[in-house]
């Protein structure tokens, strides 16, 4: 049995046609199921656990990167197979997973090509897409082997799991991050000044890692899958093969 978790933004009129077409396609494939609409205060973990107890086998997230991160970060430990139907703007993870945006995603879902995904873990919380620390005075220790610090001032840290980190270097080379390479990728950018509108950054340093400790003399903000908290020391680790996911043939890993 399939359970479809619809994000709240899909109520907007401009998505009506896409959603209708998707539902028709899913019915044609014989994989239509119960629809649950996620409201602001809905706990996705609770919903998923209830539905699994009622006999559901597959949980399908319908929405964008935000929906995907929000649902999976809270329910990564549940024993369900997850699917994803990307709709609308802000869909970068779908591209990594090889799932086309819109109605064609139903074809991928029907094929049920399953892969176990690695997820990030920090201070007893999972994160699926990205962890972000805005420019702060931090020191990073990798795999208990070496320490990285900026020569001067603050630095920004981005840890990528599924969401790609877009950055063009001087040769306009794009860097693509793979969720299934058995490592997390950390991008460190030291802040070297400030322009009128925003901070200026140096080209990033990239370190693939399995475990890292980030510490600061003062508390620094940490944003993981849209949730912000203040921490003084965090341990980031890779939880290998934690989530079973239906992916497309064109996936990037």
């Amino acid at each position, binding site marked *: 049995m399939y359970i479809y978790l619809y994000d709240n933004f899909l109520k907007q009129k401009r998505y009506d046609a896409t959603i209708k077409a998707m539902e028709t396609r899913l019915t044609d494939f014989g994989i239509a199921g119960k629809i649950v609409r996620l409201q602001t205060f809905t706990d996705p973990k609770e919903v998923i656990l209830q539905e699994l107890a009622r006999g559901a086998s597959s949980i399908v997230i319908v929405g964008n990167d935000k929906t995907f991160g929000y649902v999976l970060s809270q329910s990564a430990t549940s024993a369900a197979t997850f699917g994803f139907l990307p709709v609308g703007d802000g869909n970068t993870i779908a591209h990594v997973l090889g799932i086309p945006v819109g109605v064609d995603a139903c074809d991928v879902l029907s094929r049920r090509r399953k892969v176990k995904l690695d997820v990030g873990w920090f201070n007893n919380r999972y994160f699926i897409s990205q962890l972000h620390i805005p420019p702060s005075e931090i020191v990073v220790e990798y795999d208990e082997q070496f320490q990285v610090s900026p020569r001067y001032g603050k630095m920004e840290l981005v840890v990528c799991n599924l969401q790609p980190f877009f950055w063009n270097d001087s040769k306009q080379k794009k860097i693509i991050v793979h969720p299934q390479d058995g490592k997390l990728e950390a991008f460190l950018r030291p802040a070297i000044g400030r322009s009128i509108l925003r901070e200026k950054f140096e080209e990033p*340093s990239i370190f693939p890692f399995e475990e890292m400790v980030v510490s600061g003399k003062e508390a620094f903000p940490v944003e993981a899958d849209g949730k912000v908290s203040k921490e003084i020391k965090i341990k980031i680790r890779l939880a290998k093969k934690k989530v079973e996911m239906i992916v497309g043939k064109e996936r990037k890993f």
Partner: protein
Amino acid sequence: MFTKKPSDPTSYVAPETQLERREEDTVETVVGPSMNVEGDFVSEGNVVVKGTVAGSVKTNKSLTIEQGAKVIASVRAANVVVSGQVKGNIRAKEKLEITSSAQILGDMQCSVLMIEAGALIQGKVEMAGIQIDVPKGERKSNSLRSKIARVGKPDEESVSSEQITEMI
């Protein structure tokens, strides 16, 4: 009649093309220009150093030390390209390339060595596979010459001119 089992959709094996693509896209480890790395820096992929590294650097693939980078560490990699400053021993399993802007203070070990004009180096170079056969006659005359040379030195035990003629 219907004995043929349908293929399991879950048992998916990645085709060769996908494996190849994975190889191509591997993210490199990059140490940025204003970054300090301290400790044992171990990596499995290609490493590019633009900042400062102190301790040791090890990788199974290639290591590039760019111009302006400072490495105060022992270095071990399959291929090493040096354009910056290195203080420490370099051990390249295959090729060691030293460009004109490089400054190296330490011993080097490699199979293939390339040095551009202008590079500053102070250290010993060791390369495996040297086979220089010395012909027999040359070996004899060499030993004789060394004995004669010893005669000329005042500190060594004295050898008379008669002994020399005997030797000849």
